[in-house]
């Protein structure tokens, strides 16, 4: 997938737009710490430069090397910063606890991270590679990884939580602005970590309902359904198709159909229904030449139904005449 990430509107120099109820507290605390830092930094630098100049070695000048202590000063500059950091800690903790306490009535979305795709499953069973939420409503993410560590990050909402295999992590937020925002994976997860991005769409109530209604419909046309699955079952993260998808580490689907596949172990097999089906269920059986050292494809055994594999096959077949990616 080629992320067409257009710029978020930078409302301040530092931050993207404030698009959730958390953003105000976090931006405020950031600003306060920034001012405190400046308030300490400037005098330190000024003192440094001033002393550099005033007490510099020059003919006729000799310093008085006795000023080695000043108890009042030392106590002051130990105690005052202590109070300040205690305040900062307190403010940070309060904001954090607010972010941690799951509100009672949330719209739950089940988030699955798998190299290198996000998949979102909504309350009505709809699945979609993009996140859709309703403005003004608390949304709770129930997140789990199917392979390695990932991390769910929406800068505009100021939220972040690691997505871990073998357990569920939770995150909630309330969007306050309608629009489209970036969602990044922010825990290194391998080759296409920097391409593991998607979009967050904040709708009004009507728009959200409409989305849910449409998202649950799997396309009728078998090729469309194949594409639909391609986007949701993490194929897109590794394989190029049409004009979208990742250009590696997996081979491109474009123009593959029907042509012989040179195998890593030698010999050739035709790229047909059997090949596709076998490679989905047992990827290491017939590895294409040149892809021996690429990151191993996980098996989809038990995860895809027969008719879903047929749909994907139909989709790949439809890409017979598509342009391969520029190498």
């Amino acid at each position: 997938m080629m992320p067409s990430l257009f710029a978020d509107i930078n409302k301040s120099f530092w931050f993207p737009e404030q698009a959730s109820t958390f953003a105000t507290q976090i931006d405020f605390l950031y600003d306060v710490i920034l001012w405190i830092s400046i308030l300490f930094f400037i005098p330190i630098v000024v003192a440094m430069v001033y002393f550099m100049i005033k007490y510099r070695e020059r003919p006729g000048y000799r310093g008085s090397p006795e000023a080695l202590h000043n108890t009042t000063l030392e106590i002051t500059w130990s105690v005052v910063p202590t109070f300040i950091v205690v305040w900062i800690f307190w403010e940070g903790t309060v904001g954090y606890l607010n972010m941690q306490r799951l509100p009672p009535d949330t719209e739950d979305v089940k988030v699955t991270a798998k190299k290198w795709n996000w998949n979102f499953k909504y309350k009505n069973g709809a699945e979609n590679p993009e996140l859709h939420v309703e403005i003004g409503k608390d949304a709770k993410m129930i997140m789990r990884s199917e392979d390695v560590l990932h991390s769910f990050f929406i800068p505009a909402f100021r939220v972040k939580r690691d997505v871990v295999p073998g357990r569920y992590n939770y995150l909630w937020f309330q969007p306050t602005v309608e629009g489209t925002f970036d969602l990044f994976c922010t825990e290194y997860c391998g080759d296409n970590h920097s391409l593991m991005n998607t979009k967050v769409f904040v709708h009004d109530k009507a728009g959200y309902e409409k989305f849910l209604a449409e998202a649950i419909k799997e396309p009728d046309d078998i090729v469309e359904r194949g594409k639909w699955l391609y986007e949701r079952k993490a194929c897109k993260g590794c394989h190029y198709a049409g004009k979208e998808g990742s250009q590696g580490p997996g081979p491109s689907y474009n123009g593959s159909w029907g042509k012989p596949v040179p195998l890593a172990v030698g010999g050739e097999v035709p790229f047909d229904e059997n090949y596709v089906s076998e490679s989905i269920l047992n990827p290491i059986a017939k590895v294409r030449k040149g892809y021996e050292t690429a990151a191993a494809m996980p098996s989809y055994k038990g995860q895809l139904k027969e008719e879903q594999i047929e749909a994907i096959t139909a989709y790949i077949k439809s890409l017979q005449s598509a342009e391969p990616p520029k190498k």
Partner: protein
Amino acid sequence: MSVVTKPVTMPAPSVEAGKEDNYLTHTSGFLSWALTLDHKRIGVMYLVGIMSAFALGGVLAMMIRLHLWNPNLVPSEAWLTNKQYNQVFTLHGAVMVFLFIIPSVPAALGNFLLPIMLGSKDVAFPRLNLGSFYLWIAGACFFLFSLFATGLDTGWTFYTPYSIESQGPVVAATMGVFVLGFSSIFTGLNFIVTINTMRPPGMTWFRMPLFLWAVYSTSIIQVLATPVLGITMLLLAAERILGIGIFDAKLNGDPVAFQHFFWFYSHPAVYIMILPAMGIISELMSVHSHKGIFGYRMIAYSSVAIALFGFLVWGHHMFTSGMADVTTIVFSALTFTVSIPSAIKVFNWVGTMYKGTVSLNTPMLYALAFIFLFTIGGLTGLFLGALSTDMHLHDTYFVVAHFHYVMMGGTLVAFLGGLFHWWPKMTGKMFNDFAGIVSAAIVFVGFNLTFLPQFVLGTRGMPRRYASYAVEFVDLHRLSTIGALMLGTGLLVAGLTLLHSLFFGKKAPSNPWGGATLEWQCSSPPPHDNFSSAPAVGDPYDFSDVEYDSKTGNYVKRSKT
């Protein structure tokens, strides 16, 4: 303790027909260096090694910055493939952390200076010292192998489960880290024993130079923390080879447990990196202000405090991992406690200049640059220690900028300052001060230009370890790359200045800067056994009886009347 003191003797190196006998010329031949037990030679060998590692790490850094000149949204058109980029940033981190920055000050400068500052002949265990050096070499070999083999791409942090399934040479790299860990442990062990048992009579704890306090605190951390890294690496290797399952979710293990194990060492490790640098700054600020350090005891205490508190805060690298709330809150609170001793030091260093006589030479300018850059680094830690802001900033470029400010703007700059400061002592040559000052200026400007934009990248949401990025970030990335080129140039100037001095530098006197610590009482370079008998110990920051002799360019001890 040791035997009653012998009278003060100032050993003059014997001069035979124009050839001076010092530690460099005492014996010659490859084996006399390869099997040396002389701590000074070991220090020099370390210096060559770590500077080479730094150069390698620097080349990798330049590759990162050059690759990130463009957003690389079409990976096939980018300079590096995604996989190659991942390998580059992994090796950059691993080489810099394990081969350069952790050994740097203790192994290269500490080894050289510690016994001399104590007026003793060598460290407590010279053979162990040589052993530490060869362990470093072995570790370096493992890493070089990882570099040239199928390509390590796990990040220097080796997070599981990716590091379990990655196809790179993870086992070689983890074994390299394991070996380097022992190099570090044995160095720390050696230093603790030396300082405890081989101080000269009269040098009580509070009459030690602050550099030794710093190295001592660092050694405590090295001894206590590094074994945990060792077992972590061993368990990761066992995970890959035997599938033990401790960190693998597929075998009912816990990936987050790896992070706890890893950061339990790696957080104290950053104090291994910064404490010796702070020790250098204490020396530089006082010597080049010709004035005792302001608040000596507070600096000594805060060094130990940082070392000990540093063990309690590792969880702040994991605030978003899903730990229990109580855990995260406790780690956040403890994290702020470590900031206070560091702040106190900064104030004390600036206070040292007050009413001093400040020489604005190369070492001093590097020390002043350190104060500027380390303060920024430390203050930006506040944003990360506060829980709610960390939710936004964790794993973004803000963190990258923060740690480069403390590790590079901090430790590296202090290391360079120390290198320039003790260069005359180690090599017997004076370098061109103007060239050194120019290097400091270029490094300072280049560094800020490289990393200040990265704070903004972070707050705007740019994640770490990204080979490609959204177009909106391109201007800031380009600024950063330009800065990196400047920074590289400045470092090159510094290196060339020092190398040039080896061939064309003036002969250095024994005390070119006017220091009062013991290393300035022996010749430059020192003789093979440092002092033929234990020198008299005074106040390490009493400059009242050190006077400049303009004829020789040397500071001599004025006879007290």
